[in-house]
């Protein structure tokens, strides 16, 4: 065309909004290509979203569970628990549920424990359970944890009171109720707690604020009172040991193993035990996530490949217009990236929205769950998952994009030639 052509010099605006609007990018083309088959695109995004949801929740669970368990353990106030000999799993579970071992050991063990230089402080505990005919519709077990008011509150300094405070007299018939225990029993400071089987009455002197730990469901009473009333003078069910900051816990545990008729439950052991219990569930969920990801990948490959085959001739024409193989590869790859970003974003949004529901579901599935939030999802985790989904998407897009890049314009044109 000559320079004096009718449409080469008309309506000139050197640089304007109009000129900006007169541009089109590979990304726009790719995005609009996806709108051709809306249902197929939506289903693919849904598939990716499902995978992203599973993946985010799984990562969130992986982190949340361990963090909740650590919080539970930290909130115990002591690092090592000594119980009478028994099943270590039972001991660990009972301890985390707020109880202690079922057997008794003598208070004479205190002196042996305190001999160790690693020990900063100890706190004795006595757990007693009684049948309460007034509990629920047909009665139930009420558990009382006898604690030493001189040492236990100091170790559990993070506990706060909603009402009242700790016992005024270490030998009184006073009780401090955890938040949930008070809610369940409908008790406030000044109310009485009856143990009909023993004909005993305790007065509530304090109600704890919610701590998010096992303490919320516990009824605390002075250990001396509990020993006397239940005929267990000189006996305890457990001893919590607070270790000095710089001390070697493993070394202390080794020394404590030598004590007769006691078992040492370290928090590290508890954690390992619990984590090994949930590891099976984790493997199962990881497998499901892997399958979901593979299905999503196949979905992406299928969608993009179908779209490439459907546009076979059109891609040929685009190449006849001057698109290099890399341009076409980029266009198709961009479509994959858009699908993955939308699907990943959707899945992450759903995982945020359904974190509570996922938490509840996991609690029903696992034998033991800590009290804190089990699914910890934050922005960093969301970005990591999105990055992973993007990488998976990019990998999935390679083959369809390569196929598209190889289309020769002639192949598409031949189909209509003579």
């Amino acid at each position, binding site marked *: *065309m*000559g320079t004096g*052509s*009718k*449409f*080469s010099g*008309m*309506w*000139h*605006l*050197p640089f304007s909004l*109009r*000129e900006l609007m*007169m*541009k*089109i*990018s*590979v990304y*726009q*083309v790719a995005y*609009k*290509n996806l*709108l*051709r088959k809306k249902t197929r695109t939506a289903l693919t995004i849904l598939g990716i979203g499902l995978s992203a949801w599973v993946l985010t929740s799984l990562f969130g669970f992986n982190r949340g569970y361990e963090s909740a368990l650590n919080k539970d353990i930290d909130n115990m106030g002591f690092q090592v628990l000594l119980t009478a000999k028994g099943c270590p799993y039972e001991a660990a579970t009972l301890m985390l549920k707020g109880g202690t071992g079922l057997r008794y050991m003598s208070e004479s063990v205190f002196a042996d424990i305190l001999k160790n230089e690693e020990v900063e402080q100890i706190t004795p505990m006595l757990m007693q359970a009684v049948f309460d005919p007034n509990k629920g519709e047909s009665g139930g077990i009420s558990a009382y944890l006898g604690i030493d008011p001189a040492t236990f509150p100091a170790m559990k300094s993070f506990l706060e009171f909603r009402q009242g405070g700790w016992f005024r007299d270490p030998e009184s018939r006073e009780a401090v109720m955890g938040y949930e225990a008070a809610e369940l029993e409908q008790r406030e400071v000044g109310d009485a707690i009856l143990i009909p089987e023993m004909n005993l009455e305790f007065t509530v002197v304090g109600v704890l604020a919610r701590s998010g730990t096992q303490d919320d469901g516990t009824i605390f009473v002075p250990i001396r009172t509990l020993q006397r009333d239940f005929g267990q003078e000189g006996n305890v069910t457990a001893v919590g040991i607070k270790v000095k900051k710089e001390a070697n816990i493993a070394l202390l545990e080794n020394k404590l193993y030598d004590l007769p008729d006691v078992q040492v439950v370290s928090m590290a052991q508890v954690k390992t035990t619990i984590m090994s219990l949930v590891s099976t569930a984790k493997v199962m969920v990881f497998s499901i996530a892997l399958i979901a990801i593979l299905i999503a990948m196949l979905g992406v490959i299928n969608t993009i490949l179908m779209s490439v085959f459907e546009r076979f*001739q*059109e891609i040929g*024409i*685009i*190449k*006849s*217009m*001057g*698109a*290099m*193989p890399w*341009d076409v590869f980029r*266009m198709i790859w961009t479509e994959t990236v858009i699908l993955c970003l939308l699907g990943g974003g959707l899945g992450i949004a759903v995982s945020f929205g359904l974190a509570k529901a996922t938490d509840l579901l996991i609690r029903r599935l696992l034998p033991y769950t800590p009290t804190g939030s089990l699914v910890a999802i934050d922005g960093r985790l969301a970005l990591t998952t999105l990055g992973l989904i993007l990488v998976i998407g990019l990998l999935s897009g390679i083959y369809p994009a390569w196929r598209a890049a190889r289309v*020769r*314009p*002639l192949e598409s*044109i*031949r189909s*209509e*030639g*003579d």
Partner: protein
Amino acid sequence: MGPGQAKANGIALEARDLRKVYHRGSEDIVAVDGVSLTILRGEFISFVGPSGSGKTTLINLLGCLDNATSGSLKIGGRTVFDGRKSLSEGELTKIRRQVFGYIFQKFYLVPTLTVIENVLLPYAFYKKAEAPADPMDILRFLGLDNRASHRPSELSGGEMQRVAIARALINKPEILLADEPTGNLDTKRSEEIGGVLRRLNESEGLTVLLVTHNPSLARIARRTVVLRDGKIAD
């Protein structure tokens, strides 16, 4: 623009003894058999002949959509093929984007893009420095300026082909290749497209190579090349 002016403008394409052989199993099919042809800038040539005569194959070779088996091809005095070495797809693409605009029987408009976006589509991949500053001028020239924001599904067949022509023109090609551009259109729309091609040739000086079965469309061209069995018949 008369033939004399075309000569003054120089040679657009020069093919010497072009030959294209396809191998189908053990059989060799000679689609183009020793065609020699010189096309001047600003010429409007139609290629006619029965089905299987090699029209499309020849135009594909001339338009760098395919490599010849032997022979030579010069575009604007530059040798692009000399029979010794086939050009790679990348090399062919570079020539195509610089020299040619293509329109085909099917329009291949992207249904989710508007008319103006379809016209601008080549810019997503390549934009020549001498490309028109305002693509709306092309739409106006083709009578499509009031359809810029419409989608292809809202257009008639003739309008869709005009959009395809606008898309072929957006990078200001030196040569427009039209392969059966009216094959999907009725008589009225065919005449409309024929008129557009003639205007592009006459007023814009565009070199137009047209393959058609339609005798009345072929008559629009200033020169007609008849092909038979892969050879130029006259």
